[in-house]
């Protein structure tokens, strides 16, 4: 049968195919696009680049070894019984498989069907290698997609957030902020270039759950709102944001040397209140700061104990308020960055010249 191409919205096309009890795949182009698979008019699976599939969910969570999944794919892929194989071999329970397939199907269906203007076509006869694990009423899927769109708009109505690279704001809008565990994961992994789809794949979480959290974070002012893209302008690649305790890399070095002549030679004077130098942190490497506390990272209060157990464990255990730093860290003083020595020497030189 030849593919049928229509101008109808993907959702309508799905219902049409379902009403006539067709078997095949509704393939939707566009960003992110994807496909919904039907067997005799009922949805059996859906996939989209923006939503991690069953394999990604099971392997990235560690539930299945990558090897096990690959093996099932090799053996059962051609006969479309990958899912059944995993259960028969005892790697998964039927319940786990069904729940995983149901979750990822609804997740992908949102991305496939939410863009009502995306070009879609129905390829009759196409099946998916996973095999039939569940069957869902197509109308229920379509209805749920509509409900999810509404749910997101109730949180924060800006669909650009769903596709644009995620950029956490460098300064939180309030003194105290509370983030949930999934939001923390997103903030840690968002480097200014990863899109929500990238983050979903990376974290092995449902794509919809990711954009739901992102919309909530946008509403709370924790991530930057994507700019409206003007047509016919190139999309600039953003460099990753500097993370951790490092100083901003984009501070112009020229500013330091040009500012140097006006600053008094505070470097050797152990005066805790030096004259206002334009860039104060450059003047202090030699002076021992009265309180050698390292700058505390942003702390979302109650979640820290759980989060610290992971592989990204910070170098220092969390201190009690007022506790002293261990000696080896306290003695390090503020971090000295490359290039500081040269700038410091230049400043000393200009200061000495000024004395002549």
């Amino acid at each position, binding site marked *: 049968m030849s593919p049928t191409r229509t101008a109808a919205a993907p959702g309508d096309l799905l219902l049409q195919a379902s009403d006539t009890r067709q078997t095949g795949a509704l393939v939707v182009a566009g960003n992110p696009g994807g496909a919904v698979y039907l067997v005799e008019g009922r949805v059996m699976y859906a996939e989209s680049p923006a939503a991690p599939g069953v394999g990604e*969910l099971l392997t990235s969570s560690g539930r299945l070894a990558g090897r096990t999944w690959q093996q099932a794919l090799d053996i059962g892929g051609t006969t479309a019984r990958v899912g059944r194989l995993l259960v028969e071999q005892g790697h998964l329970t039927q*319940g786990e498989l069904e*729940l*995983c397939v149901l979750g990822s199907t*609804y997740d992908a269906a949102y991305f496939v069907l939410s863009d009502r203007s995306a070009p879609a076509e129905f390829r009759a006869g196409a099946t998916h290698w996973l095999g039939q694990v569940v069957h869902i009423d197509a109308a229920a899927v379509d209805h749920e997609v509509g*409900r999810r769109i509404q749910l997101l708009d109730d949180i924060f109505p800006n669909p650009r957030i769903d596709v644009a690279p995620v950029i956490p704001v460098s300064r939180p809008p309030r003194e105290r902020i509370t983030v949930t565990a999934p939001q923390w994961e997103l903030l840690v992994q968002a480097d200014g270039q990863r899109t929500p789809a990238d983050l979903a794949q990376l974290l092995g979480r449902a794509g919809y*759950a990711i954009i*739901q959290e992102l919309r909530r974070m946008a509403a709370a002012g924790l991530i930057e709102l994507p700019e409206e893209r003007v047509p016919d302008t190139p999309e600039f690649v953003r460099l990753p944001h500097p993370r951790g305790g490092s100083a901003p890399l984009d501070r112009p070095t020229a500013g330091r040397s040009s500012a140097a002549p006006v600053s008094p030679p505070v470097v050797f004077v152990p005066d805790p209140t030096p004259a206002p130098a334009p860039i104060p942190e450059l003047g202090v490497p030699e002076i021992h700061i009265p309180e050698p506390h390292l700058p505390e990272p942003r702390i979302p209060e109650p979640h820290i104990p759980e989060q610290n157990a992971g592989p990204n464990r910070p170098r220092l255990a969390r201190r009690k308020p007022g506790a002293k730093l261990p000696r080896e860290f306290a003695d390090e003083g503020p971090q000295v960055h490359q290039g500081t020595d040269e700038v410091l020497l230049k400043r000393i030189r200009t200061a000495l010249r000024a004395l002549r």
Partner: protein
Amino acid sequence: MPGVDHCLQEAMTIPGAVGASIVDYTTGFPVATTGAAPNSDHEAAAAGTAEVVQAATSRSLFVSAIPHDLLEDLIITTAGGYHLLRLVPTEFDSRLVLYVWLDRVRGNLAVARRKMQRLADELVARQ
């Protein structure tokens, strides 16, 4: 092999069970349902269930009182019934909760809670 439907059938055998469902609490979507729902509306019940679970996990601090503590059950009692919510601990990322509605007169909280624990664990093979 106990699948989702089998799990719900079993849940309905709990003394006093009126209805049962498995709800995705990130989206408030009923993944599977059986029997009656409050106001005969499984979808609305699921959306409400999701809000309750979210409130308990992210907006109140019960779960954060002890490190690595996890939410297990939420039990809501009304004059006419018991509403039990049991989190289904899947290893892959899915946030699911098993919901059972019990008749107040025929239902027994302790029995129902134990049975739901077993059902949720069997569903994902945690013994």
